Structure formats: structure tokens, C-alpha cells
């Protein structure tokens, strides 16, 4: 759907104020805008470590340990990490298979929690 052109009586200053207020509410309330679902609003109240909240992910890794010894490390593909970072419903499940049959689900990780 195309955007309509704003009426000439709405000033640039008002539009900036509108955008600034929406941005402030987005952050201070934790509102998210699901633009694909008709303007549905989510709100999230997640107390997180300040270090985490102030920095976007650059890289996510899966690490295998034996006790404290690191055996192997593998990066999660960037597009998957981005999905985990941005989607509250995104999860990673670690499952063990043999001959195409799942033997065990080791657990689910939620990227946003």
C-alpha cells in the first residue's frame, strides 16, 4: 500500500515530534510494532544486564565443552543470530538424531530471554 502525502498543514516539526515521541515510547515502555499484523503492539518488560541491552550482537557461537575444556566452537550463521536477537518467539532447539529419528531433545534456547 502506498503512503499518502501528508497534508500541508502538518509541519515538519510536528512530524519530528510525533516520530520522536513514538521512538521514546518504544524504548521506555518496550513497545514493539508488528507492522505486518495490522499495527499490533507488543510490550516487553525485560530486565537485562546493561551490557547486553546496550550492545547489539555481532556474533553468536555454539561451544562444546568437556568439563572446562573447550572441544569445539562454531558460529551460528549471521542471519539466524539476527533472527534470534530480534524475534521474541525465535528459539533454538538442540536435538539428537539417529537414522533420521529423533532420540532426544536436549533443550530449547530463547534468544531474547
Amino acid at each position, binding site marked *: *500500500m*502506498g*503512503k*499518502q*502525502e*501528508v*497534508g*500541508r*498543514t*502538518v*509541519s*515538519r*516539526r*510536528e*512530524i*519530528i*515530534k*510525533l*516520530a*520522536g*515521541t*513514538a*521512538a*521514546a*515510547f*518504544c*524504548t*521506555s*515502555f*518496550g*513497545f514493539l*510494532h*508488528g*507492522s505486518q*499484523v*495490522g*499495527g*499490533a*503492539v*507488543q*510490550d*516487553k*518488560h*525485560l*530486565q*537485562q*544486564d*546493561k*551490557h547486553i541491552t546496550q550492545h547489539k550482537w555481532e556474533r553468536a557461537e555454539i561451544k562444546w565443552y568437556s568439563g572446562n575444556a573447550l572441544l569445539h566452537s562454531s558460529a551460528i550463521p549471521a542471519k539466524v543470530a539476527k533472527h534470534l536477537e530480534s524475534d*521474541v518467539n525465535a528459539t533454538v532447539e538442540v536435538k539428537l538424531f539417529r537414522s533420521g529419528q529423533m532420540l532426544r531433545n536436549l533443550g530449547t534456547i*530463547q534468544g*531474547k*530471554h
Partner: protein
Amino acid sequence: MAGPHEILGMSRLLGIGTTEFLAKYTDNGGTTLRFGEEDGRCVFVTESACRVHPRRPLVCRLYPLGRATDGTGEERFARFPKQEGCEAEYGTDGTIADFLAAQGVAPYLEWSLRYGEVYRRMLGLLDRIGVEGRVETEDGGEAGAAGSHPVSDRDPLSSWQDIDASLSAYCAAKGIAVPAGIDEAIDLHLAAMQEWLDGLEARMGAAPEGSEGEEKT
């Protein structure tokens, strides 16, 4: 995270105005409480207590829970690990409902819902503004709607975040008294914002049929 209504409550507890509170105790455009650069602690956390505990924000009341709602309003809760140095009780006894009641979150959730309605209206209006659209500037010229002006990280993103200042201006224009009580001030703040959005909507004209973001639930 700290909404304008929470900033109002904390500022009243400290005996200062919201303008002073925003300048002294918030960062990120007035949207979060300030944390110490060296110790990483909230500016209100002392060795023994939280200085604004009776008026602490919702996110602090919920901890160690995290709360998220989907587009239908359905709630989900997550539990965070106990943070090092946290002396609060931390366990799995009891129910989430009991915990929320004990923390007094009900009015904060209600306020969050009401501000969410305002936010949804703002998104609806912004959705009608083409980012590439040509809009009138103050001097009669034209510029992209996405234009911005530099602001300090510590300046509020919007004057509406400062309830004392915005209500002072609103009440002066209306010739009415500024409400003294916190609840009344929040009610008027919400009403003033709705009125502001009414004016913008009226000037933008009728929404095109089926436009996104206009739906109210």
C-alpha cells in the same frame, strides 16, 4: 526502561520536577534510568537499598521476571538468573500472580496499556506519512519527513516525556489548574496526548480505507 508516568512518580518521591529528574537521572533520550559508568549500577541503588523503591518502575517490580505480550495481549513470563549482589528473595515458591500482586504491578500494567493505545495511534499516523513524502517546513520550503536534528543522548526524545513541563503548558493554554496528584496528572497527560493526536489526525484528513495501524483494540 522508564515511562513518563514512572518518571513522574519517582520525581515526586524525590521532591523534584520531572524536568530536573530527566536531566539528572536518565539517559538514552530520557527513556532509561542512568547507570554508573564505572560500577554499572542504577543511579538509585545504594549500598543498602533503592532510593526510589516505593515508586520503582514496572521493570524493577517484575524482576526477576520478564514479561512480554503478543499482539493479542496474551502474556508470557520468563525468569532471569539471580544477579550477583542481588539480596532480594529469589526462588520458585508461589505463583506468578501472587508475585505480581505483592509487587503492586497492576496500576503499572494498566498505565502501560493506556500509553500503548497512544503509541498505537502514533504509529498509525506515522504509517500514513511517506518517509520520502514532501512536507512543509517552518520556512515554507520542503524537506523529507525523515529529517532529524541533533540531540544529546541525555536530552529527552520528546517533550511529552516531561509530564510536568507538558502539563504546565497544556493547563496554561486551557486555563485550568495543573493536577497535584500523580494519578490525576497521568490521566491528564494521556488525555492531552490524545487531544494532540486528534488535532494531527484532523489536519491529515481521513485515513485511507484499510490503512495499517489505525485499528484500535
